[in-house]
């Protein structure tokens, strides 16, 4: 095709100009030779003609481009201060976006690697609406019998996969072994996703059937490479995970790590799920119990089945089934709905981290707008000072198009410099966001990858063009004679409405961001002042870990730890020591009970939850005994119970809870007597309604299987924490020689709960500060340039008797007036945009007036500060010089 030939020729000349020149010379000399033989007209000036011929190719264009870039580079180097300012501003603006996009991309835009036609994969979600009116939440988890119900409605069982995840197996069976997440899946897991084996094979439907244990395993390519050193002969070998052996039958295709945000390292047949055969629940085995809510499903809708149709039918079927499974306490309002393969896209309500990251991207875009406005302003200001140069060029006949191109290329070159810096910002910022905000996600891609690079470069390029074209268009149409005569001196004569407009926009957006930052910082303060009911500062928890399969029997561990508790009690630096089965805010148990003629199962809205603790737990963890006393220690505590304030008020409103009778399991069981009421502590979240909770003693029949091997230690005031911790670890090691003792400060345990709040406040404050700095730079440079252009005017005014104060007042007043307009708009914007951040706030309204005032005052102060220096300089203008130039 001819146009392709032409294009190839064009591209070749541009890419290999040297080769083209050589060919041209050859061609000419060949011509000359033939010409010598045949006679005719000679070439004349061959060099000139070669040049002329060359102009016929694309080289003419690249020559010009090279000229323009060279020119731009020289002019950039002439003004290093402006260059630095522009590059830094753009690098921050673009870099912040790159960093946030990095995480956003992973969460929302990236289909899991390797999946064929990922758009057709549907996950089944359940929207739970507790019949009693509890909180609505979405979950993908279902019990195996529930999966069966869904599969029946799906139409084609082969098109719906079911799986369950078991995390943190240790490779090799030792505690230090590589942590391995294994997904136990039906055989259609791989076929539905279109994943192929890289080596070996996947398991068959027969091998994955429930009730069949094959202990086969398929490894991810990455895991095979890293944990098993890419052993070529791995197929058929056995690997040890915790205490059991698994036969490797295949390696999945490279790049596939499962379809969830947390990567999987291996896949095993569903039926081989550990414990599936032996474990029994009160309602049956894993495969028949409606209580084992650990299975997930996804599939491809069979042709002829619509999503809406499935949702309607399956919801009805599931409600019927749930009534059978759970009896009177079934959630009869739950609905099933379908979501895509990218989990963050819903339908579940976004997690707080997701809220932060999406809001942050909006904020980052605002920062970018501010940055671009700033850069346009700086370039406009510089264009003013180059008005004479531009006029000369126009007078000498440069075309307007070429001039616009010249100026635009300059800003594009600047933007490309900024892009390099922005890539570093994006890489660094992206890594920080990943580890700080999204620590529970396995990021497979490096912090900087193709998506981020393209977005960063693209955004930088767009900013460069935009920031160049605007000033270029404005200044390529000057009043020639006036500009040639007056040059830069007349610059301030006409105050640029465009520049004022940009300044207003900058101020407005900065105020909006500052309001946001103030709100989030205040939110963090409110969160931190929430009383969670536990002492966080002088308390640590000590426990013992074991290599898989080597832990002594539970009864022995409890007994040993109890000895350690008794020994710790008298030690130096220990104020109190107790025991518990679970870490605080780290889980709870349910036991159903009766009080009077009512069952605890009727309390669906706020179901009471229980904990197994030692008698000294309350004192050591920082809970207060409000009434009565704690239960006794050891077997003497049989038949005793402690409730918290919330439960006491729920069960016996207006009565004394002490001495009340509670019957566990059945209304005919003997009484468990309430011995005390303790203060209400957080059940699991920082923000929660007071949750009814009760505490059963460790060492009684009912808590036999609950454990109770975690020590909680409160140190005495002024005690050396590290020494007490070391003491506790040594005592545990002594009592349980094959254990690995570990300690965690209470602060460390609750830190993850505060982290999103803290990070949100920090990020928004950082970005707000960034916006403030950029805005101040913008105000300063605008005022400074405007003043620089008007030295003449100020000189004359001073000669006429104006005082320094008058000039300063005038200049500052001019600057502040523009900014004040921006602040007004910004506050209005903040009001309007409040809804966007509402979900990130606690204890403060998005329309909080004091936050608005604070932000406005800060920016106003910054504006005054930024214009005082140039104003003072204006006031020092030399009247003699100014008049002489007249």
């Amino acid at each position: 095709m001819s146009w392709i030939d032409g294009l190839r020729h064009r591209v070749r000349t541009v890419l290999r100009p040297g080769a083209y020149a050589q060919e041209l010379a050859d061609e000419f000399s060949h011509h000359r030779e033939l010409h010598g033989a045949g006679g005719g007209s000679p070439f004349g000036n061959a060099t000139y003609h070669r040049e002329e011929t060359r102009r016929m190719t694309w080289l003419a264009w690249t020559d010009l481009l090279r000229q323009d870039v060279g020119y731009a580079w020289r002019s950039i180097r002439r003004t290093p201060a402006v260059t630095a300012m522009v590059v830094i501003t753009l690098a921050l603006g673009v870099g912040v976006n790159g960093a946030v996009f990095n995480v956003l991309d992973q969460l929302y835009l990236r289909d899991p690697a390797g999946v064929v036609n990922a758009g057709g994969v549907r996950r089944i979600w359940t929207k739970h609406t507790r019949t009693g009116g509890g909180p609505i939440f979405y979950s993908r988890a279902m019990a195996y019998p529930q999966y069966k119900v869904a599969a029946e409605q799906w139409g084609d069982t082969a098109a719906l996969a079911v799986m369950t995840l078991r995390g943190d197996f240790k490779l090799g069976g030792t505690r230090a072994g590589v942590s391995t997440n294994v997904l136990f899946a039906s055989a259609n897991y791989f076929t539905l996703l279109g994943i192929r084996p890289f080596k070996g094979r996947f398991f068959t439907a027969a091998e994955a059937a429930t009730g069949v244990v094959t202990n086969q395993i398929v490894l991810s390519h990455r895991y095979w490479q890293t944990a098993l050193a890419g052993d070529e002969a791995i197929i058929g070998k056995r690997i040890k995970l915790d205490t059991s052996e698994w036969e490797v039958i295949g390696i999945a295709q490279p790049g596939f790590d499962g379809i969830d945000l947390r990567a999987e390292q291996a896949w095993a047949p569903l039926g081989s799920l550990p414990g599936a055969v032996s474990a029994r629940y009160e309602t049956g085995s894993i495969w028949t119990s409606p209580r084992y809510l650990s299975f997930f499903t996804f599939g491809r809708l069979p042709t002829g089945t619509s999503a809406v149709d499935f949702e309607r039918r399956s919801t009805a079927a599931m409600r019927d089934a749930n009534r059978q499974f759970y009896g009177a306490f079934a959630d009869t309002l739950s609905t099933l709905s379908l979501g895509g393969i990218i989990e963050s896209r819903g339908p579940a309500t976004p997690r707080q981290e997701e809220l932060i990251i999406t809001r942050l991207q909006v904020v980052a875009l605002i920062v970018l707008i501010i940055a671009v406005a700033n850069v346009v302003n700086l370039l406009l200001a510089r264009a003013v000072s180059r008005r004479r140069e531009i006029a000369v060029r126009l007078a000498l006949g440069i075309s307007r198009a070429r001039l616009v191109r010249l100026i635009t290329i300059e800003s594009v070159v600047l933007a490309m410099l900024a892009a390099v810096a922005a890539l570093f910002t994006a890489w660094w910022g992206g890594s920080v966001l990943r580890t700080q905000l999204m620590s529970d996600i396995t990021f497979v891609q490096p912090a900087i990858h193709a998506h981020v690079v393209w977005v960063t470069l693209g955004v930088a390029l767009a900013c460069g063009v935009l920031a160049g074209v605007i000033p270029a268009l404005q200044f390529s149409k000057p009043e020639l004679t006036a500009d040639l005569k007056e040059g830069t001196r007349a610059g301030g004569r006409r105050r640029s409405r465009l520049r004022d407009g940009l300044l207003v926009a900058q101020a407005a957006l900065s105020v909006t961001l500052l309001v946001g930052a103030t709100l989030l910082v205040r939110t963090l303060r409110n969160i931190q002042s929430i009383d969670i009911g536990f002492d966080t500062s002088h308390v640590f928890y000590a426990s013992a870990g074991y290599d898989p399969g080597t832990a002594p029997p539970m009864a022995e561990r409890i007994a040993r730890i109890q000895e350690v508790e008794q020994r710790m009690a008298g030690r130096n630096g220990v104020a109190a020591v107790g025991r518990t089965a679970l870490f605080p805010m780290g889980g709870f148990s349910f036991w159903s009970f009766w009080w009077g003629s009512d069952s605890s199962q009727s309390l669906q809205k706020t179901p009471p939850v229980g904990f197994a603790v030692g008698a000294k737990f309350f004192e050591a963890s920082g809970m207060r005994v409000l009434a009565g006393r704690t239960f006794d220690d050891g077997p003497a505590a049989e038949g005793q119970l402690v409730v918290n304030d919330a439960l006491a008020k729920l069960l016996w409103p207006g009565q004394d809870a002490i001495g009340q009778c509670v019957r566990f399991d059945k209304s005919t069981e003997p009484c468990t007597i309430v011995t005390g009421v303790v203060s209400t502590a957080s059940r699991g979240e920082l923000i929660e309604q007071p949750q009814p909770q009760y505490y059963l003693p460790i060492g009684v029949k009912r808590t036999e299987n609950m454990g109770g091997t975690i020590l909680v230690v409160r140190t005495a005031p002024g005690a050396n924490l590290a020494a007490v911790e070391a003491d506790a670890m040594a005592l545990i090691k002594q009592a349980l020689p094959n254990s690995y003792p570990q300690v965690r400060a209470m602060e460390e345990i609750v830190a993850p709960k505060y982290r999103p709040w803290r990070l949100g406040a920090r990020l928004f404050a950082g970005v707000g500060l960034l916006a403030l700095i950029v805005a101040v730079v913008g105000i300063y440079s605008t005022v400074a340039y405007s003043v620089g252009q008007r030295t003449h005017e100020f000189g004359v005014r001073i000669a006429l008797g104006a005082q320094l104060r008058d000039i300063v007042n005038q200049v500052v007043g001019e600057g502040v007036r523009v900014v004040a307009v921006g602040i007004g708009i910004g506050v209005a914007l903040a009001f309007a945009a409040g809804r966007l951040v509402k979900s990130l706030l606690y204890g403060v309204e998005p329309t909080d007036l004091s936050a608005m005032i604070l932000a406005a005052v800060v920016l106003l102060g910054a504006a005054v500060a930024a214009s005082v220096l140039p104003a003072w300089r204006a006031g020092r203008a030399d009247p003699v010089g100014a008049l002489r130039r007249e």
Partner: protein
Amino acid sequence: MPRESNGPLQGTLDVLVLRALALQATHGYGVSEWIRERTAGSIVIEDAALYKALHRLERDGAVAAEWGASENNRKARFYRLTPAGRRLLKAEEAAWNDYVAAVARVLSAT
């Protein structure tokens, strides 16, 4: 990109070059010789102008060039017409004939 004016003179040169190449692929000298012979020496194309025209036509995809051996067994750049070049020749021929006819009508007017 700099564009050459497409006045009648350049059009003449282009149509002559394209016509020459329509018969057979040849090198720049061959084109120039063909035109001189065909016009009995009354149109002599300046060599520099010829190469400008050839390279411009190549840029626009009307002709394609490749290296081959010439009659004196030297390396030479042979130009051939592309399909786009053929279409261009047809259009230029028609335009040229119209032009000649128009001029002729003016000159023969009484």
